[in-house]
């Protein structure tokens, strides 16, 4: 049933080379914040790569990996918010959106969202420093010029190209919250009852939310979210991410009524759905996921199905937590646009009919995916891991 990657497909030397590359890259990135954290994080990411490569169930390690990144991010973020305090938090919420639109943002706002991707070059450039009382000055080293915007865009585009929808499965800190429950396929009874009630009505047509093969309409909801967020970003001339980033949205709403409505919607969609069942937010709502689903057509890593080996047992339909498979009319299954390359199906398919390939080349692409995902995780989560480390090691953020 299970397949080990390295022993069957490659040698120990390959494994060593891959792990050393991951260790070297991680060390180069993280040593910017100190030798010790550089060594520590490089060792951790090297260990993660090694474990993924030799494990017979790497999909479980993937879950731990992305959850670890998630913990680092939320630890850093919440600690940061705690240090900001309510006064600065409100000011930040209401002003940080203007940062990319002003020529000299620091003089106007003094704040920027620590989640904003614009900070990455600054973070890599070792220029994070904060003066008390909680006044962030690193934007002074980050003028929003076209060169840095292009750099960020290229980094995003490159990651999206390499991983495609795999970003959601390997790196997303929001989807990572659902990792603890993503293997849970049985929703709560109350949830199931309410879903059944909806399904019996005319509204339920096309919205098979509880079956293992949700209707196409349900899968298309995320594209509607994508359209709406893109339109809103265009209309209001803000960055796209700020439209649905929770901090960005709170900044949009001024009255307490709207904030209340928004928080309620967010609680249902963001917290409720992943907890009640599998990652519905990810496959049906997330606009980033929708964009990545479109990008996924170009990504080199592809889940492929060997029709000759497939015995139509449909085990993949049951094990996939993201509804990544759909029955074909003429038998067998096809991969849908919600597959986040968690690889559960690859290892649980009884006939080994499912595999991950580089395009359609008959090679075991997992030995490329695992280190790529780990290196990209090290790259994108730099800021959060450093802040989380500071919090744990030094007892304070800055």
């Amino acid at each position, binding site marked *: 049933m299970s397949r080990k990657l390295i022993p069957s497909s490659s040698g120990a030397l390959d494994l060593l080379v891959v792990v050393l590359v991951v260790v070297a890259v991680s060390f180069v990135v993280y040593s910017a914040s100190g030798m010790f954290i550089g060594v520590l994080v490089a060792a951790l990411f090297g260990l993660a790569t090694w474990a993924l490569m030799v494990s017979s169930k790497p999909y479980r390690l993937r879950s731990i990996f992305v959850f670890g990144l998630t913990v680092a991010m939320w630890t850093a973020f919440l600690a940061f918010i705690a240090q900001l305090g309510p006064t600065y938090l409100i000011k930040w919420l209401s002003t940080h959106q203007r940062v990319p639109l002003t020529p000299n943002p620091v003089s106007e706002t003094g704040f920027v969202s620590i989640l904003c991707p614009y900070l990455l070059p600054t973070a890599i450039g070792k220029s994070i420093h904060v003066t008390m009382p909680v006044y962030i000055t690193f934007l002074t080293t980050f003028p929003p010029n076209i060169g840095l915007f292009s750099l960020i865009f290229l980094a995003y585009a490159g990651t999206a190209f390499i991983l495609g929808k795999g970003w959601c499965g390997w790196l997303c800190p929001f989807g990572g919250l659902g990792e603890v429950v993503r293997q849970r396929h049985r929703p709560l009874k109350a949830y199931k009852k309410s879903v059944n009630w909806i399904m019996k009505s*005319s*509204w339920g047509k096309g919205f098979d939310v509880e079956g293992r093969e949700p209707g*196409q*309409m349900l899968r*298309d*909801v995320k*594209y*509607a*979210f994508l*359209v*709406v967020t893109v*339109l*809103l970003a*265009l*209309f209001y001339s803000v960055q796209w991410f700020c439209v649905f980033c929770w901090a960005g949205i709170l900044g949009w*709403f*001024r*009255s307490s*009524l*709207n904030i209340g*409505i928004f928080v309620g919607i967010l609680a249902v969609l963001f917290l409720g759905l992943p907890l009640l069942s599998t990652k519905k937010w990810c496959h049906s709502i997330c606009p980033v996921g929708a964009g990545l689903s479109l990008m996924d057509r170009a990504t080199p890593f592809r889940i492929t199905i060997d029709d000759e080996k497939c015995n139509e047992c449909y085990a993949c339909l049951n094990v996939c937590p993201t509804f990544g498979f759909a029955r074909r009319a003429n038998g067998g299954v096809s991969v849908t646009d919600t597959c986040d390359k968690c690889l559960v199906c690859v290892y649980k398919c009884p006939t080994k009919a499912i595999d991950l390939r580089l395009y359609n080349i008959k090679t075991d692409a997992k030995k490329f995916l695992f280190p790529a995902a780990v290196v990209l995780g090290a790259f994108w989560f730099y800021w959060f891991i450093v802040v989380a480390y500071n919090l744990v090691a030094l007892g304070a953020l800055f």
Partner: protein
Amino acid sequence: MGLDTLAAALLLGLSSGVQCTVTCLPLLLTQLTAAKRTVRDNLRISLLFSLGRLMVYFAMAYLLYISFRAFSGTLGNPLSESLTSVLMGTILIYYCVKAIRKKAATNCGVRTQGKLAHLPFTNFAFRANPGRNSTSLLLGIVSSMSVCLPLVALISLSANADLATAFSSVSLFWIGSSVYSVGLALTLAGVSRIRIGASLSRRVGFIGSLSGVMLGAIMLLAGLSALTIL
């Protein structure tokens, strides 16, 4: 005349154009497939169809402008803007929910029986001869008279601007929303067989309609919020 208003009008046209084209697809296809399907013929048909829409848009923009001036008295009235937002949101939600539930008037409100095409909401009919210039123009006119996304856009463009801005905005909206139908006509002229998947068309229609519901909800919320402040 603010550039941001004009840019917004063009964006509105570009964004609602997909929904428009999908909804009007049956009408357009009848016309486009009946012709000889040369680039020139299809371009003529799609432009005449679009021209019919523009004529109605101008007329509606003028009527809406007069109505809102009579209602609010001045330009930029906060009450008018809030009510416009509420109205737009309500119409958008109503129309798009009906579209999702497949109860919307199909073919842009134009009911066709044999060679007869009925005007929206009426029993008046005219003879629709595919490929004829007058038919293309007439279909463009009558298909624009339904309650749909362009109407919502027209309300937003005409209610809170002076007449010159309103007409300019409507023109830009028209250009934005016509891009897709003209593109479709040119594409069809370039291929020997029509291969528009019904499934893809349905999906695009659903995504467009659901987006409309969400945008309508945002407009409604924004309008109500502004009203509570007033």
